[in-house]
């Protein structure tokens, strides 16, 4: 103790500026666990299948200024997305923000991603002062608009994409704001699910608020505030260290959507990636001007795509926060498909995000060939089918997503029949589909030969057939990569995956002419057949291990 006095005083001084590493680790782990706990509450008590089955939601904790410090990373598409909404709330409501409030927002030109993603955000007050925020964003199946399921690739304006909400007060001082609940309830096709899920989102926020308050009680508000700051610093530092450890270089890559969503020409996504020292610049300004259809990407989603690609190419296991964006610069002028001006429609922005993620990863594979990864499919077949329950006759919308093959890489083959890159949506089980909707699924199989060849081979695409039963049914679907030029690319000498294909057969078996996107009314007995792309191959096919080739034959992979 005698010799310890001086060092203890030095220690105390050090801790006043930068808390000790143990406290930091304890508190930051608790904050990450809190975001996950919020997610569990939301997932297990929600009604929208997109939330509970497809994990299309996020939960996060923010600093008082809106920077995101911890996020439960269920779905890459929403990485870091909510912080722009929180900043919008601060700007709009300022001094009026009070304890017990909860804000609702979905406006793509006020920080949100597309109208079906409803953000519910709560301030956390400590000792009467605004300390931080907790929030959830979740994809609701329908927020009104022209089409069941709200999304429509050909919609030309944001005003056709359902209810638009800049941040408004869903709760005031802990009580529901009945005006907002009434407006939302009247505008959407399934008010019971939507309003229940909003309450579930707020219940998740309450859990988050309680945990942050407990942590502040335990460590002190000042210490917790500096934990928030240091969590941002730590992620920034880790990303910079990763980048510094990689060779410098620059590369560009381009990719295309099949069209512009409204029957127009292919839409170009262009990336110029440059790494110098511990910084990365993603220049997206070579991408197409904003388009007529709903393929435009609001800024929050463009940012999320870049954050995703950085994480996937550096350390996939490390959680991220807004600290990433201090090490990465994104440039893209207004008026482009990746940074549109209002009122461009955005509801099918996810297809463009997938294309952007793939293009970023291909550019990164050029700069760092030993990390090269062949392309996964970005066909992303999505479908909203108006239907009825075969048991009760109640109207509903069947929302379906079909994945395909992922790209091969230096360590092995790609995966078969899965969703790729920025989402991880499961395939609806036949026994769920046919007991919930008036539809019969005639087959679901992996397509032999759809993969890119190589030393390691891509994963297989999926063939699935849906037969409409009962009555005339409205359907909207959209996909990409039906154009063979845009099929998944191989890497380092590996072959390309197959293009995707959509076929629609009338009740008489005759083929109806459709492109990669359509909104139709189908008579009972009609069949929609989707064949998705396989993943790209990696390396020279001649180099394939004979044992793997033999296993391919036993698995009849073609």
């Amino acid at each position: 103790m005698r010799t310890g006095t001086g060092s203890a005083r030095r220690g105390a001084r050090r801790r006043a500026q930068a808390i000790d590493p143990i406290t930091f680790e304890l508190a930051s782990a608790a904050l990450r666990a809190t975001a996950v706990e919020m997610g569990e509450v939301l997932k297990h008590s929600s009604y929208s299948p997109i939330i509970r089955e497809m994990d299309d939601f996020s939960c996060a904790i923010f600093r008082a200024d809106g920077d995101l410090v911890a996020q439960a990373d269920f779905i890459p598409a929403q990485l870091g997305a909510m912080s722009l909404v929180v900043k919008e709330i601060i700007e709009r409501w300022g001094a009026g923000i009070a304890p017990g409030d909860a804000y609702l927002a979905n406006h793509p030109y006020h920080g949100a991603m597309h109208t079906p993603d409803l953000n519910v955000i709560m301030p956390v007050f400590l000792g009467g002062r605004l300390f931080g925020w907790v929030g959830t964003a979740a994809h609701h199946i329908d927020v009104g608009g022209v089409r069941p399921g709200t999304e429509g690739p050909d919609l030309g304006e944001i005003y056709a994409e359902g209810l638009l909400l800049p941040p408004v007060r869903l709760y005031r001082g802990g009580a529901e704001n009945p005006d907002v609940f009434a407006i939302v309830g009247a505008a959407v096709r399934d008010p019971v699910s939507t309003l229940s899920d909003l309450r579930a989102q707020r219940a998740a926020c309450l859990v988050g608020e309680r945990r942050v308050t407990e942590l502040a009680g335990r460590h002190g508000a000042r210490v917790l505030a500096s934990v928030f700051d240091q969590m941002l610093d730590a992620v920034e530092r880790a990303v910079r260290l990763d980048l510094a450890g990689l060779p410098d270089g620059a590369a560009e890559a381009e990719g295309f959507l099949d069209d512009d969503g409204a029957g127009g020409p292919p839409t170009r996504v262009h990336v110029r990636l440059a790494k110098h020292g511990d910084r990365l610049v993603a220049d997206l300004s070579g991408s197409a001007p904003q388009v007529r259809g709903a393929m435009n990407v609001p800024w929050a989603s463009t940012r999320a795509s870049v954050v995703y690609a950085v994480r996937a190419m550096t350390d996939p296991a490390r959680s991220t926060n807004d600290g990433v964006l201090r090490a990465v610069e994104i440039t893209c002028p207004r008026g482009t498909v990746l940074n549109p001006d209002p009122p461009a429609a955005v509801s099918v922005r996810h297809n463009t995000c997938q294309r952007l993620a793939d293009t970023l990863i291909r550019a990164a594979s050029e700069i760092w060939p030993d990390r090269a990864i062949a392309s996964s499919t970005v066909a992303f077949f999505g479908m909203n089918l108006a239907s009825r329950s075969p048991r009760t006759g109640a109207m509903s919308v069947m929302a379906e997503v079909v994945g395909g093959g992922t790209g091969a890489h230096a360590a092995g083959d790609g995966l078969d029949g899965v969703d790729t890159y920025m989402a991880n949506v499961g395939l609806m089980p036949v026994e769920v589909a046919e007991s919930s909707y008036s539809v019969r699924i005639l087959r679901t199989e992996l397509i032999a030969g759809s993969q890119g060849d190589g030393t390691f081979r891509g994963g297989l695409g999926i063939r699935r057939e849906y037969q409409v039963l009962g009555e005339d049914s409205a359907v909207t679907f959209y996909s990409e990569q039906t154009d063979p030029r845009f099929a998944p690319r191989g890497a380092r000498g590996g072959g390309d995956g197959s293009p995707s294909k959509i076929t629609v057969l009338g009740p008489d078996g005759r083929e109806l002419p459709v492109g990669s996107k359509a909104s139709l009314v189908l008579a009972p007995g009609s069949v929609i057949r989707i064949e998705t792309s396989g993943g790209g191959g990696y390396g020279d096919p001649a180099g394939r291990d004979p044992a793997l080739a033999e296993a391919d034959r036993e698995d009849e992979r073609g």
Partner: protein
Amino acid sequence: MVSERAGRRWVVGVDVGGTFTDAIAASSDGRVVVAKVPSTPQDPGDALERALRELSGQGVSPGAIQMIFHGTTVATNALLTGRTARVALATTRGFRDVLGYRTGSRPLVYDLTQPRPRQLVRRADRVEVDERLSGLGEVVTPLTRAEADRAAEAIAALRPDAVAVCLLFSYLDDAHERILGEALARRLPGIPVTLSASVAREFREYPRTSTAVINAGLRPVVGRYLLGLGSRLRALGAPSRLHIMQSNGGCLPAERAAEQAHRLVLSGPAAGVAGTAALGASYGLRQLVSLDMGGTSLDVCLIPDGVPPVAPRQEIDGSPILAPSVDIVTVGAGGGSIARVDRSGRLLVGPESAGARPGPAAYGHGGDQATLTDAHVVAGTLPADLPLAGALTLDADAARAALEPVARSLGLEAGEAADGIIRLAVAQMTAALRRVSVQRGIDPRGYALVAFGGAGPLHAGLLLRELGFRTALVPRFPGLFAASGLTSTDIRIDDSRTVLAPLAPGLAGELASWYAAAGRRLAAQLRRDGIPRGRIRLAASADCRFAGQGYELSVPVTPRGPAGVAALAARFRELHLRAYGHADPDQPVEVVTVRLSAFGALPVAGADRPAGDAAPPGDAASAGDAAPPGLEPPGAAGFTRPGAAARIGRAAVRLPGAPAVRAVPVYDRERLGAGTAVRGPAIIHQLDATTVVLPGQRARVDDRGTMWLEERR
């Protein structure tokens, strides 16, 4: 059914772990004998036989063993290493690839280089069959006898070791599966055939197919193993009344274990949980948390009402199994968890582990990475100069040398780093305990913690303080607790059926009659297993959700008749409100799956075996969450300080969170008799575990050798 012999009779539990095979024998007159031998992964039966021989050397005559309970990893290991039998699979035409695309999502969301999951059945070994039911169970395409024979012929040509059949919507009507099963039995006599509706009558084709295929692939493996055990036991002169632990926390007569092989996958961890429930019941405690911490991981289970809760499904190596399994939360935090500082300067503990070999640096087996055990050695909570099980002694210099680089990277002294590592590990343990309690709306202050495994008692006092449990119990042999837990289990059989219908008055009668029929079926099986009627009890539940939701909550159905079914909706709303903080009073409730479990209490009389057995879940009034006052250990009128002989030294210890080192007395647990109370701070040493008592806490030893830790009031 139990032959009456003169003299002492024994009940034996044998638990096969990754490193050691533990055996414990309890006699009808209260004697307990233990054995610990190295496991033999090539044939686990070798170690089991050796353990029985060691017991025999200590006076447990094989002929006097009345029953053997066995926790086995045979099924788990076969699945993890791919050494299952070759299975052919029959599916509805158009759907042979259900095992290929699985759920349609990626196991790891962000990893672009994750490995392709192993296929359970080669694509060439999957045969499609012309037949189809609709989503309402109506026949769309009938299965003809000719088509069944054609499919059986095609499967026979593949020469499989076993066959699984999973047809769409067979959970609604299994007639097609049975027709195909008969055709296969005719064509392939002697080859096991598993029908999906017979092993898991639940909806969603991928998990049901996976379950049927895993069952088929394990049947020959488990069958061979049990056959081998049977002849070993006969050769030893032990009567082969053998019971196998299941994932659900109950056991199964060995004769029926092979056909239920998919239910044995969590056999090992379930034993400790069953032991916790039995230990609690013997003290009248029904709100319990089990904490099993070994070298590589920590298993936590919350037991809310005396009976371990089960989850309806589990996953192994990425494949789902629809078999009720004790609801354990596992985290990668054990004594061997490695502490390191990453490049950005963050201190991390686990999930990487030094395992059994090389193990912590302090073990002196060549490990040089800092582990949680090494942190305890440096902190002094694990004194270095005392003997441990397996003739091990701890090398304090090696532990300190391993910790130095970590401490340097953090700018701390070794003692401070050790303290940080322990506190981080305790935070991970606390997070796991919160996940099973606070996050499910349950207040741990009403619960008793039971801490076991080699590293559990080391942290029991810390967790008691952190979460405020009523008390923390450290069993007499913490390192052998899973084996002793085995001897206290009931036979358990589960049945289930997917209903998927709104909870309307018309449904109530249908559900009540399913419960009645299933109850008769299960009770009849238990009577065939030799359980008298009076020792059989049934527990019914229903998985419910609001119409439109996708996740269910399990709701107990008591009483099992129409009245219990009628109360379901109200009970579900109450549970939903408690778990998630909201419940819509107007939204209709639907029943997804009905479940019934039958428990048969084995009429054995071992010392560690509680007589009455726990009451059926839900039948007794729950004690609720209110924190009851402290508990009194039984068997001693007053507690006295330990005698001087029990105190074997003093250690220089930096207690977790304390700023400095202090001298702490060390006691020998063997010499702490019944009625002893040890005031903290103290370290209580025994061969298989060390218990740390914090300042302000005390440890009291009851007349059965269980140690009760509590805060002094």
